């Protein structure tokens, strides 16, 4: 992981706005959001459906462009970047985890995890070694030759996390990572996020699940596209929740 002790925010948004539609149909999905996320910090974003959480995440990761405002990622302003430069930055600095997993159904588990490394221009051998290492980390080595359609939801999400880590990103952006998982799989996922957090990775997680939010260092609440609350969670909160869901012995 690209972890350093620098105090410069790894993700920054200034007066961020994203509009959809026009005229009477105008929808302001994100409305004047300001955000600084420090390196190694875990931020959970919560709010009702349609409040703009996912749109915010897409803007922070360069998957979508804002209507107004600035987005900075790993020290670079990305809202005005060319598509190509943005792709390069996304490849090296960001890992995405989606609610719907977004795995390539025609590729095996191992090949899915290799994909970002191959896109980054790594040699096939190096990409394979890295993928094997990550699958071991998410305890999916036994299923490396399977197709995603042969896996359970929890297993697919573990593969998606392994894929997100392939290029040793600075930030992991997770959009409802437990939204499609049952309770046991959610617990598994929380354990995995806890490991990532412990390794110093920066995590921004959009979630409806309070258990997931409770593992964060910071909880942002959104409503109608705007931040309505930004709370730093004390260690105690996390620890008690961890104990609650059995993350601690």
């Amino acid at each position, binding site marked *: 992981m690209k972890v350093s002790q620098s105090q410069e925010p790894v993700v920054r948004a200034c007066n961020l706005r994203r509009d959809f539609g026009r005229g009477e149909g105008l929808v302001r999905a994100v409305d004047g959001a300001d955000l600084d996320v420090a390196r190694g910090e875990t931020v959970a974003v919560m709010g009702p459906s349609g409040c703009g959480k996912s749109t915010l995440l897409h803007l922070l990761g360069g998957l979508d462009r804002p209507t107004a405002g600035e987005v900075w990622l790993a020290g670079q302003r990305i809202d005005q970047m060319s598509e190509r430069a943005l*792709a390069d930055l996304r490849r090296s600095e960001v890992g995405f985890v989606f609610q719907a997993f977004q795995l390539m159904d025609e590729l095996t588990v191992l090949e899915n995890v290799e994909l970002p490394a191959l896109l980054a221009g790594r040699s096939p051998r190096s990409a394979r070694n890295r993928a094997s290492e990550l699958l071991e980390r998410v305890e999916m080595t036994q299923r490396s030759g399977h197709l995603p359609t042969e896996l359970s939801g929890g297993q697919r999400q573990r593969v998606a996390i392994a894929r997100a880590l392939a290029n040793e990103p600075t930030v992991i952006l997770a959009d409802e990572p437990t939204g499609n998982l049952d309770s046991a799989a959610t617990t598994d996922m929380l354990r995995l996020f806890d490991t990532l957090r412990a390794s110093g990775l920066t995590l921004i997680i959009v979630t409806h699940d309070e258990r997931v939010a409770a593992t964060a260092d910071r909880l942002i609440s959104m409503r109608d596209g705007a931040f309505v609350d930004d709370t730093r969670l004390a260690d105690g909160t996390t620890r008690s929740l961890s104990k609650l869901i059995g993350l601690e012995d």
Partner: protein
Amino acid sequence: MGRLLLISRLAARDVRRRPAQAALLLVVIAAAMAALTLGLVLHGVTANPYAQTKAETAGPDVVASSVGYGSDQRRFAALADTPGVVAHGGPFPVAWPVLTAHGVTADVMAEGREQAPAAVDQPKVLQGTWVHSGGVVVERAFANALDLHVGDQVSVDGKAFRVDGIAVTAAVPVYSQVCFYGGCSGPPSRSLQFDTGLIWLTQPAARALATPANPLTHYLSLRLADPASAPTFVQKHQPPSTNGPAALTSWQSLSAAAATLVSQEQNVLSPASWLLCLLALATVAVVAGGRMDEQERRVGLLKAAGATPSLAAIVLLAEHLMIAVCAAAAGLAAGWLAAPLLTSPGASLIGAPGSPAFSVPIVLLVVIVALAVATASTLVPALRAARVSTVRLLAGTARPPRRQAWLIRLSSGLPVPLLLGLRLVARRPRRSLLSGASFT
């Protein structure tokens, strides 16, 4: 290297995932490439074999038939001494009997020959031996048509002969156009099952076949000092027209006669192959456009993982290019196998002329056209898919159509099936246009 592996892996896996679509693309492009291959290989397919045959049979530059000289046979005989003529073969006596073999009958031009080789126009024996007493040598295309082989028995005007050999010549147009220039003699009322063929036999045997009602004619083969001037020589020494066949024929005319064997096929195939290419273009565009819509999530995923728009487009393009290369190979193979079927009459010439003359430029042209078809039909939807916002691609939600109020009012009065059909057409105007083009 890693990206190359990824591109080929994604292309191969998607082909495996959607085999029916891939097979359809393959068949359409391969059909167009097969037609193009045929058109290209038939172009000039008989030119080289005729030249080769002429060289190997000491072929004449000008052939003279006594038929065209009527009663002026002295002038015919004097042709051998005409200035510009450096050598000659014959005059060879020619009888016009009926040959019967395997229960079928055919008119034949039975040319009497010495056993010693002629200086000009010595047919090349491909199987068996040259003429002996009691035997005939059959021209190859005629032998093929009658399924005659060395050792078979045939009857010529009721007399038994064995087939001593199979040979080719450059002095007479190939079967079934033996009478094309020099004309044929023989009683006109005979109704036979086959076109006139060519056989060689000994001169005594040829003379023995002549009757007062069916007399001998003679053929003289001339070599000129300047073969290129043969048409001029023919024009200068052609006897006055008698409404009959031409007395003199240049080697250029004989070569052109060989070419006419495939000219019709070529005339049809060349435009047809280009039309098929356009049809392939339209079909591939329709299929590829449909596939691009299906693959939007795939493109979004690649882009989310860090693929640039151009790389995402290349991934989509690669699959179709891979299919195009396979289709080009299949088309070349099909064209190569089909060409001999269209040029079988050319088997009268040396060098297996029925087989197409494949060359590197033909192969390259076919491959390039196949790739161009795939690229032209896939590039636009691939680039469009690559340019669409990653979020929209990943979400895979339907795009809201922009509708005018008057259009909504108008459409509300239409029957539902018609309304749905028109909507589909209006949503994809380019694809509808291409579909329409492919039907025409």
